[in-house]
């Protein structure tokens, strides 16, 4: 029986060590091309800047809430880069940097968290599902959508993002099982950032790693150092190819860390030590990739400067977007509840209209 081939590598796949030197736990994966790595770097710089900016604007009351991606940039950027244009991404509330890397505009990304509307972009045009808050529910949508594409003969893939905590939900289990049974072209990408709000991974699961779940569904699985962008990209590229080639879904777990509190509304000092956070700050994925690319002569100082400058321009556009107060039409509440408003909604709309005119 070849079941053991479904098991992940015994230790997380790693191409680059914390200090930026080469590590050689490649797990048989090929190294992504230098140009892609540079692109990943560029987007991580952009994403980091975006994240810092959004956090700052939250303090000024410009966003209702912001769950930071700090520390998870390698995962989120790799998830976006692993996708082709026709592929779908299923993000959570935490994955704003993935959306930025996918090319969405700041205003589109932040509409939900700003409180203007439930989703700021067109999922059909962007092939990005609405950021999902009911945990794990989107993994089923991803499996279903992947299966739909497979049925139509499109060779597109869906990547579902999910956190460590959300893997405890029943929907995650059902999604893995449906995907495996239907051999749907979907990659489940768990960002194990070691916390579900305040609950540490040790209280979430007794498994050595979440990637060990795959074998129970007959699904290939892998674990990877989530702060090593090279490794994450290598593993995700391979997983996406596996799915695209009709070989079935893949479960990938990235070991990473949530550097900031759960959201701006959270106080992480209540439940974890500053030292732990400090230790993980050292493992910064952006620094690591930068050192690696410089070591490999793939990145020039001038490029570093240019990317940083571009990120500043981008940050300015984030500020501009959030400082403008968009007009919201209260009567839009009645749009899109049904294809056509029911008679009851028409009456309620008329009443609100009268109220607004009074």
């Amino acid at each position, binding site marked *: 029986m070849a079941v053991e081939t479904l098991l992940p590598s015994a230790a997380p796949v790693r191409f680059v060590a914390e200090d930026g030197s080469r590590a050689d736990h490649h797990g048989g994966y090929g190294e992504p091309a230098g140009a892609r790595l540079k692109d990943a770097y560029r987007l991580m710089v952009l994403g980091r800047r975006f994240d810092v900016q959004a956090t700052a604007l939250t303090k000024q009351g410009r966003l209702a809430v912001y769950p930071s991606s700090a520390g998870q940039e390698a995962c989120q950027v790799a998830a976006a880069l692993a996708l082709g244009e026709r592929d779908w991404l299923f993000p959570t509330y935490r994955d704003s940097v993935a959306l930025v890397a996918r090319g969405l505009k700041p205003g589109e990304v932040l509409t939900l968290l700003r409180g203007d509307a439930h989703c700021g972009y067109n999922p059909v045009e962007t092939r990005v*599902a609405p950021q999902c808050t*009911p945990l794990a529910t989107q993994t089923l949508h991803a499996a279903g959508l992947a299966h739909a594409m497979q049925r139509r003969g499109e060779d597109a893939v869906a990547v579902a993002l999910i956190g460590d905590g959300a893997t405890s939900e029943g929907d995650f289990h059902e999604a893995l099982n449906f995907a495996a049974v239907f051999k749907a072209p979907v990659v489940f990408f768990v960002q194990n950032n070691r916390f579900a709000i305040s609950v540490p991974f040790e209280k979430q699961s007794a498994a050595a790693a979440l990637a060990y779940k795959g074998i129970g569904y007959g699904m290939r699985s892998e674990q990877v150092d989530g702060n090593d962008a090279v490794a994450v990209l290598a593993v995700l590229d391979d997983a996406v190819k596996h799915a695209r080639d009709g070989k079935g879904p893949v479960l990938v777990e990235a070991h990473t860390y949530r550097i900031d509190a759960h959201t701006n509304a959270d106080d992480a000092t209540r439940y974890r030590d500053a030292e732990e956070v400090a230790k993980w700050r050292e493992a910064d994925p952006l620094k690591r990739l930068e050192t690696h690319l410089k070591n490999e002569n793939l990145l020039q100082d001038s490029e570093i400067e240019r990317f940083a400058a571009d990120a500043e321009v981008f940050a300015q556009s984030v500020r501009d977007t959030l400082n403008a107060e968009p007009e919201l039409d209260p009567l839009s509440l009645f749009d899109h509840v049904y294809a056509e408003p*029911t008679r009851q909604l028409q009456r309620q709309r008329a009443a609100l209209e009268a109220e607004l005119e009074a």
Partner: protein
Amino acid sequence: MTTTMAQALNAALRDALKDDDRVLVFGEDVGTLGGVFRVTDGITADFGEDRCFDTPLAESGIVGFAVGMAMGGFRPVVEMQFDAFAYPAFEQITSHVAKLRNRTRGALELPMVIRIPYAGGIGGVEHHCDSSEAYYTHTPGLRVVTPGTAQDAYDLLRDAIESPDPVVFLEPKCRYWSSEEVSFTRSGAAMDRAVVRRHGKDVTLIAYGPMVATALETAEAAKDEGWDVEVVDLRSLSPFDDETVTASVRRTGRAVVVHEAAGFGGYGAEVVARVTEQCFHQLHAPVLRVTGLDVPYPAPKLERHMLPDVDRILDTIARLQWADTPVVAGA
């Protein structure tokens, strides 16, 4: 053509599959077996596993997977095997099925049908007989319909599958095997319209699904008591057809709502509340309800005590303060 409600539903699925290749039927045991109630009988054989297939046993999975399939351009018709076994899918139904169009401001629509065999009267053991309509009707974004006749089973299911909105389609189990003349060309009222099944001038009985037949029986029995009973079959529980119902109650001045579900917080409360608001000055008596008891659905041997029947409905009609009314000429 004489056919049962189960067969009428089967015909509706077949015609929908024929007309639109985006339609897919899936769920637990709906494939080779044809469903535990045989509603999908022979469909896999005739249309192929590609169009009608079994899934793993997980209701949230079925509904969530269907959401993804609908996002990908299909029109899934899924079956929850029994009412209470749709509860595992409650989060997917309320937080996604009902809201996806709204969440995406119309960019994504969700044309899917969730078929749920519901209610009792078939001697089913616990958890197999829930009347769960109130959970769905209170959820904006869902349409909820339930046929009381085999013809409506055909018509409404065709409409539901064609609807651009998600529809919770409640099938009254106890009517699956009742035979009736059915035409497989749609001719009925629009999906969101109630119909007057029997005209009468003294009191309006408002019923739906499994209770339509009981209401009609009651109307017959009521003749002996001298009451001329009008029967309205709601068909669409959400949205509600105020026009048809209100017109009837304004005419009769009295109304009774009947359903199997527990009364407290049941769907009938909504009917009472809105009918009362709209017909207050035409009402001779408060609108009353005949419903299931406010207890968990009983074991088979006691279920008849739970369910509204002709006697209980007649007793309730009798309580409509007839004495207070000026005697109508001829009555």
